[in-house]
């Protein structure tokens, strides 16, 4: 028996699956008609799937409690947060301010998630890869994106 469940990989995985299953079943029951086996409504299949997922999740979690296997290695919260932030920033900047600000943000923020951050290298990398992306997107694929929204357009 192992009571430290915070690092128990199967227990956590089981909880995650149970949570997804519960969301699927609850939302289906609340919002969509069920129908019957002959005329299945939009809720029928997801409810069945959610039920299966909950059962399997319980199995995985129970096995985790019994076996008590720990997670290997450490969580990389810092790279995870910075990489996710870089991607979100790209979407936000791209839709409002254009391609160039979005590309610069992706490189600066995601590079900060790496093990070492060398500013000069990152700047050169940003310039080279951004130029490459601009050429491919705007000239080769002819996508209708502004370089900087409201200021600089190509084509």
């Amino acid at each position: 028996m192992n009571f430290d469940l915070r690092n128990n990989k199967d227990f956590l995985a089981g909880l995650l699956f149970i949570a997804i299953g519960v969301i699927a079943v609850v939302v289906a029951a609340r919002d969509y008609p069920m129908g019957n086996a002959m005329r299945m409504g939009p809720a029928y299949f997801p409810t069945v799937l959610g039920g299966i997922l909950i059962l399997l999740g319980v199995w995985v979690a129970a096995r985790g409690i019994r076996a008590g296997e720990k997670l290997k290695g450490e969580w990389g919260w810092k790279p995870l947060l910075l990489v996710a932030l870089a991607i979100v920033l790209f979407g936000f900047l791209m839709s409002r301010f254009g391609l160039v600000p979005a590309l610069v943000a992706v490189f600066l923020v995601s590079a900060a998630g790496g093990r070492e951050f060398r500013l000069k290298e990152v700047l050169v990398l940003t310039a080279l890869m951004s130029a490459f992306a601009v050429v491919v997107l705007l000239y080769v694929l002819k996508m209708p994106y502004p370089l900087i929204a409201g200021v600089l357009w190509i084509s």
Partner: protein
Amino acid sequence: MDILSNLAFGFGVAFSLQNLGYCFAGVLLGTLIGVLPGIGPLVAIGMLFPLTFTLPPVAALIMLAGIYYGAQYGGSTTSILVNLPGETASAVTCLDGYQMARRGRAGPALAVAALASFFAGCVGTLLIALAGPPLAEMALMFGAAEYFSLMLMALVAAAVLTSGDMVKGFCMVVVGLLLGLVGTDVNSGMPRYTFGVMELYDGIGFTVIVVGLFAISEVVSNLASREPREVFTRKISNLLPTRQDIRDSCWPTVRGTAVGSVFGVLPGTGPALSSFVTYMLEKKIAKDPSRFGKGAIEGVAAPEAANNAAAQTNFIPMLTLGIPSSAIMALMMGAMIVHGISPGPQVMTSNPELFWGIIASMWIGNLLLVVLNLPLVGVWASLLRVPYRWLFPSIIMFCCVGNYAVNNNAVDVYLCALVGAIGYILVRLECEPAPLILGFVLGPLMEEYLRRAMLLSRGDPSVFFTRPMSLAFVLGSVLILAVMIAPALREKRGG
């Protein structure tokens, strides 16, 4: 001969200057991306998929297929030079390929890998051309119940045969099925699980899922782990294998091709398992098994032949039945649907130029791989010397741009960040993401076939057991499960 005229027709399509160009571009880009450690064909296809958006369907699929083998071959190059497989299918090649490289024989290892792959690719292509028409004819007799049971079998196989844990594999399949249901329900027109987000009404894009689950979570995992990478940086001098090498790798290549061809057709198995099985086979029948793992050329030729043969025959169920047998085929199928072609037995008659054109382009793609890769090995090797701190921001950039380009909206990009974060958590909890992709693509189809079958049988579920083909598939699923569970049970009882 019917097949000859069909193949000739296919070559006519594939040899148009435009399609030849896209095949070349696909193979080149695929190799370029596949060479990068940790990036396999799945991610390569997911990342480059938006590039094919504006192309006509035939050209798009030819290019995607090119990316697929390119990335597969690129993965082998990485296994041999860096001991870091880009994906599971080339993991076995690491064992002997890397040892050969350490002994200064990286050149012959790469050459034999390319030639064995080419041979296997030729055989695989021919098999598709032979097996396609009769299988499609059979599939025309399938009703909704048969399709549902067949999909069930594919999903069971995918869950059971993952490299990870089986129960978690099933969980991931179900999560994939549920994710596939997000969007407007075709029967009632009701939006499901969209949580009020307009952009979700058409469902979650598969680029979002694939790039998030594989590329982004992989980058984060790499950044979080501390293991340094050992890169083989010595110059590759001579490429030519000796006569002894050729003689030693002849039969292993043939055997690898045979094993790979069979495994490629079976649902859920695909290139990864077949390369592993042939490696074990070669080791078992070798005169001196101790050479394996120390740079035996058979240990490179056989798995490389197997994974390429399987990569080819993988297309058979997808093109003829409309059922993908692996995550990559699920992706190719998704791409076909995006281009307005519903995969299945009717493709051969309604879009013959697509079916035969793809088959012919497969052979051309395999030829291009040999022609392209052997002279360019030096370039690929130098790509491996690029430090990861330059590589990963560029990978993230490609992911962002690719996702944005699909619909030109930011929601896909936000979703991708979310899926990437969840993907990283799943990787940490040791849940293999490949079965999820298969579920994701099959989700809406399965629901549709289930509904139709139950409507026709007036709500009687016995329809899945009374129709003979359907029963065969259900029994097949049970058999796969039994075969996998039996050894574990015996072990428990014995221990």
